[in-house]
């Protein structure tokens, strides 16, 4: 039976290895075949991180709580920046949750080749599996932080801050997807560009830190309405997503269809560009990494 198949499929090769990948051969079907591996990587990332800790996943809650406290003090008490009429704790917490998700997607996908070189050097599997698994395992972390936010919203509802659940909540997964897409796209572009020359990777930690300040995380976009550097924040494709996220949750924020469309186009652009570059590099990056 097997021989018959082979004979029929004369000169039907399953794999052809050539010096260079053609630019547009993405092979997403192969990534799909390795979906089990993707889930196992997600599991590994999640489980291995908290082995031999007592608090385990609780650590996901402590970090955003502390950051929120710092923001409350710095931006609320000291700098006295308003929060669009949103309860400050909830305002900061929501911003931190979505920003953390973006930053985690970006920084961990951007080191795909360098951190996994030892595995990549020994076995072949579609390299895209790793950045995909990173984005997914970070969604779980985002979920935990989002749950924390919901608990606080419920808590504040008892203290008289109304919690309004509208059909806008249904857009939240879409916004998270946008955030993931931009983080993923930029991340794999950086990881592909840094296999040979590492300079960009060093720049990244710095850029992520600065990025938070030109995204309306610790202040609302409306706060900048009259300032002359407003353009710096509006040009940032992440700003409309953060504002829309807050609009969905609290009903207050500066959202425009144009802004969101801009973010969507930007995401599609970086994802497509990222996958093309990644595809080009993945074949023989081992020689230079």
């Amino acid at each position, binding site marked *: 039976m097997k021989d018959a198949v082979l004979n029929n499929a004369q000169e039907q090769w399953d794999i052809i290895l050539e*010096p260079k990948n053609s630019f547009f051969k993405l092979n997403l079907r192969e990534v799909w075949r390795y979906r089990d591996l993707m889930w196992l990587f997600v599991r590994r990332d999640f489980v291995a991180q908290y082995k031999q800790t007592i608090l385990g996943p609780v650590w996901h809650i402590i970090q955003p709580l502390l950051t929120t406290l710092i923001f409350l003090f710095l931006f609320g008490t000291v700098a006295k920046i308003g929060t669009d009429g949103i309860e400050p704790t909830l305002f900061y917490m929501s911003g931190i949750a979505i920003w953390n998700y973006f930053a985690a997607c970006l920084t961990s996908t951007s080191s795909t080749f360098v951190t996994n070189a030892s595995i990549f050097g020994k076995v072949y599997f579609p390299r895209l599996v790793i950045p995909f698994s990173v984005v997914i395992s970070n969604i779980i972390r985002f979920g935990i932080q989002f749950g924390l936010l919901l608990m606080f919203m419920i808590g504040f509802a008892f203290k008289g801050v109304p919690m309004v659940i509208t059909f806008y909540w249904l857009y939240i997964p879409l916004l998270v997807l946008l955030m993931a897409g931009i983080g993923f796209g930029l991340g794999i572009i950086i990881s592909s560009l840094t296999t040979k020359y590492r300079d960009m990777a060093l720049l990244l930690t710095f850029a992520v830190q600065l990025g938070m300040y030109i995204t309306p995380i610790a202040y609302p976009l409306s706060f900048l309405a009259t300032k002359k550097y407003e353009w710096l924040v509006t040009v940032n494709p992440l700003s409309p997503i953060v504002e829309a996220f807050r609009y969905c949750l609290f009903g207050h924020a500066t959202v425009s269809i144009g802004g969101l469309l801009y973010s969507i186009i930007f995401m599609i652009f970086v994802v497509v560009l990222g996958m093309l570059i990644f595809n080009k590099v993945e074949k023989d990056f081992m*020689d230079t990494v």
Partner: protein
Amino acid sequence: MSNIVIEVNNISKQYRLGQIGTGSLAHDINRWWYRIRGKDDPYMKIGEENERITKGNSEYVWALQNVDFKVEHGKVMGIIGRNGAGKSTLLKILSRTTAPTKGDVKIKGRVASLLEVGTGFHPELTGRENIFLNGAILGMTKNEIKTKFDDIVSFAGVERYIDTPVKRYSSGMYVRLAFSVAAHLEPEILIVDEVLAVGDAEFQKKCLGKMKDVSSNEGRTILFVSHNMTAIKNLCDTVLYMRNGKVVEVGPTNNVINNYLSHYVNSSLRQAFADPAEAPGNELVKIKRIEVCPQLESELNPITVNTAIDVEIEFWNYLDGKQINLSLHLYTIAQECVFNVGTPALNLSKGLHKGVCKIPANLLNDGIYSVSLMVVADKSYPLYNYENAVSFEVQENRDASGWHGKWPGFVRPNLEFNLE
């Protein structure tokens, strides 16, 4: 109606030596500039044969050059050659961890490669979790692993520890578990690098048995790299012999192995260089001569287990005021170290010096050995390491009575052993 599952068409692989930095950036820019003008890569034309012991003139070497062969369905092909012959580079290309610089490879069916056991094992995860993770990395689906899980665990013999993190495993258990996962893969083509060098003798036997099983009963194609000629003889239908990145010979196992061994031995009882410029070494020391001198009555007699052997070494020393000593490693053909001996350290003047290592008769077992020489300064740091400098074969010399099997052991010393 071809029965060929792997077709390697004239592949070559070029590597750049040295560090990546501003120097490589200049080359990259130059390469890009040539490409824009529609010209060929200027660095493709240069590059030298991969001969590691002589210092080359080019920054580029060809780890593989015009390698071309075919493998039929269900066959086991062995790949042999000395260290640095390009075997591992070839396997890397076939297992898709890197791409060839020129040429192409066509493959039918699923490929699984075992270049290392335990790839992707995470020390914090338990044996059970790692079986799933490693299996998936090697290309199995979750369901496949589930159905084979019990077999994997019992083959490895680690039932008791399966829910313990693998960082608590002994190294033997770790390796057995890792190999066991790999052994239960079901690809059409299996690529195996020297993984059998791990584990105890019993486990090695089990692994060889498993591989034989896989090829003869399940009709899978196997490519197998090893320095272990016995394993190659037992397992392989054909053998590919490589040297300095080129294919020397492909053919039936016994013929190729014999040619390889005679090559390995005859060409290399003596390495001598009259001119320091050509001699192996560096600015600190250069090896003038290293020679295996069997103490035989006639040069025509073979070296046997009863022959005493002198290894003579001459080298130029360019250092002053250092304690210098020589260190000699003797390896079997499977690259296992039989012994390491050193001279006392002396404060040598600049110039030519000589050393002799006397290997007594009735010490070595029969087999093929290679000698590596290291020149060491201040008893601590190596100045130069000349790997596989010379090699020789020790032949059997038993009376025609009694038992004829292969004498076991690395050494065959003539110890006093009396019965009363």
